[in-house]
């Protein structure tokens, strides 16, 4: 550290000075309670200098954040590090080895976008959670491509070669269409948003005074005139309509203008209407993809696409390549990434009769038990008819789910790809590169042992790490593993 002559020693740099405008605003929002306290104190004492003092203090702290934050990128891309120094009272230095960098994301909220800034986030293999990561908040947007190129550069590649970069063409894999919005209301996100909003409103105590207001009383009047059933129907209709609108709005805000493109060995994803997000993934870290089809999206012929990648969290927004979109789009993008159409759309091998029996018993076990209890009660005393109707509906629903799950269950394996499909409510087709599989688990519960089936779990460092394939017939389970991994077939335990 103390040798300034070293070549890898690079000067500490500050973030964009425009953050001097952003930090105080964020600080004001963060310290809102303090600010309100200052205003209250100022108006009660009649001395507004309290308000001014609090305001000045918050702005000064915000500005100080910029002066105390600096970063540097050491020149050697193999052994060098990127470092971030930050903190006003608690000084913190975050260091990330450059050869550990797996992906670079940028994110620009509205205020950042207005000022031409972007937050740059570096994720490494092991921990991809945002809080512990390396975050530059923020740099100028026009610096982002250069920083990204430097951070993601492999040792073999020249770092600063704009000529090479422009020569490599971009291939656009997918572009957002407004018609994709039709899949958005089919998720639960709208209902969840509404629930959260209702909770917030209730927490804030607005409901108390509202209860006796004229609005509430007129609503009660209307409800009494309409009757119970009609009121429930109206409320349900309003809730469903609102959740549809909210979900579509959320999807529009998050995924509008989405572009997925590929340039040489990197995959770029950009999306967002107001808050612009951009992810860059190193293609050599790609271990496959997952087609996700929630039941309602599947009925409308849609599918979402997740990346299976090392260094990127397998669940949640960070791994999403495509939100629910037409199945053909998702399939063609995945085909382009894995390079084998059979992997994405080819037929699968089912798991046979015993796996099917297990689906039936698991789906219908509980309804049958409830039915038996109902029958006993019917014989002993009387049971309202609607209970039996409800039971019939639930049982039919479970049977349909079981039939659908049986149809979905299957796998396909060759020496390059392992494909697994399962689920009804949340159907997924996982396409996994066999080169990325670093462990196999064969798991059997007592029931599975009796049915002579087993759950095969492929372990990988990518995506969700654990890819289970349920109820494979016992005599096929190791054959699947052996076909995917030569080190299983050639191990000393193999029986041929």
């Amino acid at each position, binding site marked *: 550290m103390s040798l300034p002559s070293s070549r890898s020693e690079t000067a500490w740099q500050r973030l964009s000075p425009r953050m001097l405008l952003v930090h105080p605003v964020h600080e004001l929002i963060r310290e809102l309670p303090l600010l309100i306290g200052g205003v209250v104190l100022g108006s009660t004492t009649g001395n507004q200098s309290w308000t001014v003092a609090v305001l000045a203090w918050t702005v000064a702290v915000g500005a100080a954040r910029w002066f105390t934050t600096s970063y540097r990128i050491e020149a050697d891309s193999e052994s060098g590090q990127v470092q971030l120094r930050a903190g006003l009272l608690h000084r913190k230095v975050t260091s990330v080895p450059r050869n550990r960098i797996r992906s670079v994301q940028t994110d620009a909220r509205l205020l950042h976008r207005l000022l031409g800034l972007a937050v740059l986030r570096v994720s490494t293999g092991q921990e991809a959670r945002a809080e512990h990561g390396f975050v530059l908040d923020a740099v100028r947007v026009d610096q982002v491509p250069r920083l990204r190129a430097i951070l993601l550069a492999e040792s073999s590649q020249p770092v600063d070669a704009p000529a090479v970069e422009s020569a490599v063409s971009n291939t656009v894999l997918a572009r957002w269409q407004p018609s994709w919005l039709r899949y958005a209301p089919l998720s639960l996100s709208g209902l969840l948003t509404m629930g959260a909003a209702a909770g917030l409103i209730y927490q804030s105590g607005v409901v108390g005074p509202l209860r006796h207001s004229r609005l509430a009383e007129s609503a009660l009047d209307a409800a009494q005139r309409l009757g119970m059933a009609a009121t429930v129907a109206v409320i349900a209709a309003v809730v469903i309509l609102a959740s549809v609108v909210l979900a579509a709005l959320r999807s529009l805000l998050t995924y509008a203008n989405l572009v997925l493109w590929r340039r040489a060995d990197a995959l770029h994803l950009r999306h967002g209407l107001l808050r612009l997000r951009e992810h860059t993934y190193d293609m050599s870290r790609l271990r496959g993809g997952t087609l996700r089809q929630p039941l309602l999206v599947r009925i409308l012929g849609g599918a979402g696409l997740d990346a299976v990648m090392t260094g990127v969290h397998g669940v949640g927004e960070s791994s999403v390549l495509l939100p629910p979109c037409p199945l053909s789009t998702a399939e063609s993008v995945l085909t382009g990434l894995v390079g084998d159409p059979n992997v994405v759309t080819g037929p699968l091998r089912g798991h046979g009769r015993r796996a099917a029996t297990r689906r039936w018993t698991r789906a219908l076990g509980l309804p049958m038990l409830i039915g038996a209890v109902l029958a006993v009660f019917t014989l002993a005393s009387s049971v309202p008819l609607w209970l039996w109707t409800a039971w019939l509906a639930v049982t039919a629903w479970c049977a349909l789910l079981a039939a659908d799950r049986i149809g979905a269950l299957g796998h396909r394996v060759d020496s390059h790809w392992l494909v697994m499909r399962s689920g009804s409510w949340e159907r997924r087709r996982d396409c996994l590169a066999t080169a990325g599989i670093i462990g196999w688990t064969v798991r*059997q519960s007592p029931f599975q042992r009796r049915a002579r089936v087993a759950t095969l779990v492929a372990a990988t*460092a990518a995506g969700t790490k654990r890819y289970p394939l349920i109820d494979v017939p016992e005599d096929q389970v190791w054959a699947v593993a052996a076909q995917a991994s030569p080190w299983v077939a*050639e191990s*000393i335990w193999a029986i*041929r």
Partner: protein
Amino acid sequence: MVSGILDGVDNRGPSPALVGMVDPAHPSSRRAPLRWAIGGLVPWLVLAAGQAVWIAFDRRLLWLHIVLAVFTVLGAVISLTVVPLWRYRVHRWELGPLAVYTRTGWLVQERRIAPISRVQTVDTYRGPLDRLFGLANVTVTTASSAGAVHIAALDVAVADHLVAQLTDIAAIGAEDAT
């Protein structure tokens, strides 16, 4: 249960379809059932102590005390006798030239195999009970959180030898292993 090792690995040409896997050869230490029995007894003893305190302070609901006592004794007896012996029959491990292979569990059983070329760390763990009985547990981790291989209750000498062998074969840190 097959305890032999198949010799003569043939990896020339396309290998014929694999039918199954022989179980790994080596059982846990002979002292392992004792360690598991005592380890399994501890929670039941805590439960029994709690019950004794309860009885000392409150003697109403005698039937509930009796039901709970029977339940506790039954659980203790099962975890003292059935579970350790069952686990000892199931638990197996073996280190091959390419992979490490284990079988674990009792009610739910797992076989797990991991390639040595992808091993990242080899850890040994000895809890207080393990030290009392001269045992050690070895965990072989790979880059996947779902792929760690646990080998439980080995004699210390066996565990040390295994760790030495593993670190020798797996050139740990040579490659990224993801």
